């Protein structure tokens, strides 16, 4: 019997960085199995979604989302997101409805639009495309600590927003408690077409009073500030997540946000009405340059035998006096191992900003700040919806979501003079949201 030393270490000529393929073959020879495709290799998880948002007679938005995530091993995770939005349609300008037709100058100064008697003035030139990019890196640090850092970029034709964020999370109590802290810094820059209006400057409307085009343009330009303006925002977030038992998880967050800079909406105006409620002229709005906001958030998730209940409440308050309450609930029912339905209900209530005015009265003192933007007024809003999800045999997942949203602005205690009493100053906004998503 001639036994030989089988290993050929001396003859080894090349050094192979990846030995795993050869090791897999040796394993299969040992176990007498056939090689399998390396299923555990880190793969990109992709999500895509297409969302349609349509308000009755107002804004229509179509949004495409593509996000990707990869675990590079050892819980080093990269995630990225690309969002494309297009918005078209009409948006409330802030002016009040009148018993007669009204004519307004477009924010760009180029052209006019008319609104029929009794209709809420909507600026129909609203059209924008937005691109958003996000990148986030998360990895374990030391002592059960995780760190995450990311950048966010959002660009519209006249708006640019850049932000960076960082956060730390640490687990305690056998990973039953997680404490986290995060910081985000954002820089926004706005450069609207037609320039930024001077605060409370009167809207210039060409009703034949100008000798020529240059005279109109000079009058329009006199209401505008040149160049861009910006805003910086600092956000702080502190959170605690607590596992209550095998089925229940609770989360508490406190958020602090302070912003400094240009908060005004350059496209919004206020009607100045006389004591009969008739519009005399229109002025451009102006908002404070600072805003500080506190928010308190509580969320509970509960695993049912065949689904998940998710309920959250948020209270937010800021130094503009916009106090809001949000209740959000989702209830997921598994219909089978691979399909589920998820009803959604959200209720929102907010108080008006201290400088919110539906209109200004002629002859009264001009306030320091004022805006008739319905989004700053008192309101309630609710969303009801249903999502259906199904998992394919391949593991890829489809989701279909249909929701109805209604926003009901309220009179925050303003007395409407004469003719305005006959008109709807606080019209509801109704919208339908439809989304299709696919994860693979």
């Amino acid at each position, binding site marked *: 019997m001639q*036994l030989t030393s089988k290993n050929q270490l001396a003859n080894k000529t090349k050094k192979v960085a990846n030995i795993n393929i050869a090791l*897999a073959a040796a394993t299969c020879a040992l176990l007498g199995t056939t090689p399998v495709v390396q*299923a555990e290799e880190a793969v990109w998880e992709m999500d895509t979604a297409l969302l349609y948002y349509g308000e009755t007679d107002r804004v229509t938005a179509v949004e495409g989302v593509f996000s990707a995530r990869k675990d590079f091993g050892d819980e080093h995770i990269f995630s990225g997101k690309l969002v494309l939005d297009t918005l078209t349609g009409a948006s409330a300008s802030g002016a009040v409805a009148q018993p007669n037709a009204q004519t307004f100058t477009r924010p760009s100064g180029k052209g006019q639009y008319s609104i029929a008697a009794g209709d809420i003035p909507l600026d129909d030139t609203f059209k924008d495309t937005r691109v958003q990019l996000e990148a986030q890196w998360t990895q374990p640090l030391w002592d059960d600590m995780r760190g995450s850092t990311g950048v966010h970029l959002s660009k519209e034709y006249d708006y640019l927003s850049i932000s960076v964020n960082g956060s730390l999370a640490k687990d305690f109590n056998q*990973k039953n408690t997680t404490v986290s802290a995060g910081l985000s810094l954002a820089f926004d820059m706005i450069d609207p077409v037609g320039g930024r209006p001077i605060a409370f400057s009167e809207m210039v409307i060409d009703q034949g009073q100008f000798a020529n085009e240059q005279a109109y343009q000079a009058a329009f330009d006199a209401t505008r500030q040149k160049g861009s303006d910006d805003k910086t925002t600092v956000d702080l977030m502190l959170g605690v997540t607590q596992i209550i038992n095998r089925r229940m998880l609770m989360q508490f967050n406190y958020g602090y946000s302070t912003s400094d800079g240009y908060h005004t909406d350059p496209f919004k105006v206020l009607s100045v009405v006389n004591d009969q409620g008739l519009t005399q002229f229109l002025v451009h709005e102006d908002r404070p340059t600072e805003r500080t906001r506190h928010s308190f958030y509580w969320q509970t998730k509960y695993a049912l035998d065949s689904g998940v209940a998710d309920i959250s409440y948020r209270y937010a308050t800021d130094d503009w006096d916009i106090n809001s309450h949000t209740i959000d609930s989702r209830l997921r029912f598994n219909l089978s*191992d691979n399909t589920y339905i998820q009803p959604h209900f959200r209720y929102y209530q907010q108080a008006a900003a201290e400088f919110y005015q539906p209109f200004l009265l002629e002859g009264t003192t001009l306030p320091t700040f004022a805006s008739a933007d319905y989004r700053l007024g008192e309101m309630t809003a609710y969303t009801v919806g249903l999502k259906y999800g199904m998992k394919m045999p391949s593991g890829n997942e489809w989701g279909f979501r249909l929701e109805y949203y209604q926003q009901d602005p309220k009179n925050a205690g303003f007395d409407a003079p004469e003719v305005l009493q006959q008109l709807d100053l606080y019209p509801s906004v109704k919208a339908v949201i439809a989304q299709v998503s696919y994860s693979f």
Partner: protein
Amino acid sequence: MINGSYTIEQKSDHIIGRFSAMASPCELLIETQDPMLANHLTSLAYSEAKRIEQKFSRYLPNNPMANINHSKGKPVAIDDEIFRLLEFTNSCFELSEGLFDITSGVLRKAWKFDGSDSLPSADGVKVLMAYIGWQKVKYDQSSIILTKGMELDFGGIGKEYAVDCVAKLCAQCAPTTSVVINFGGDIQVTRARNNNQAWLIGIESPEDAAPAKMLKIISGGLATSGDARRYLLKDGKRYSHILNPETGYPIENAPRSVTVAAPHCIQAGLLATLALLKGARAESFLHEQGVKFWCYR
């Protein structure tokens, strides 16, 4: 249900079979509501684990390992299973360029990793080096020759091998049932669960005080190598129980523990052990392998 050697426990969506083998707690998570099937699989697993333990333990007299290790240079007959394991360890030796060597177990005579500060003498290590070197082992399909004083030790892969063998038996016996075989943290899932949900498994942390790490596993194998309680500490320096067969001394700057996911448990175990042997380069080595892994330093 208790059967003396193993126990069966009914959970809400699976059944757990438990027994003790290879100095480790062993468990099977079986996605079934059928206690008969669970009992059958656990019984199979128990016998297979005991069979491998009996055959390959270097602590037992008169088993094939004892016959090989006490052969004093004479040829010893081997069966097909031992031949396949020798072929496998030969591949590992070659792929690791000599770092993985099942003849290096004799260094245990010098190194006692009991948490103390008693390092062996340099001479004590040097003497043993003469008995290390896989390239000196001669074998073929039916026999093996070890030079006198040399020993083989399958301790580094035995538990992972047993996990894979049990997984294979379970897959043959219950091909449509997802079973997790977990022998003290070395894990194999026979197939994905019917609802495609991951199995959640706790992995013991290298430090007693730290909580166990929860890992999700859908399919494939998972293995951990590390020096949980096996080390020496002298003058503030920690000596890991991972010994370099070329020097006879512990690998420096190795992670405390490495967990690797791979299609098979034994493959994962080998990659975890090789990562430890790479010392400071453990993480970059595992990155090169393109596998999912968790290092604890």
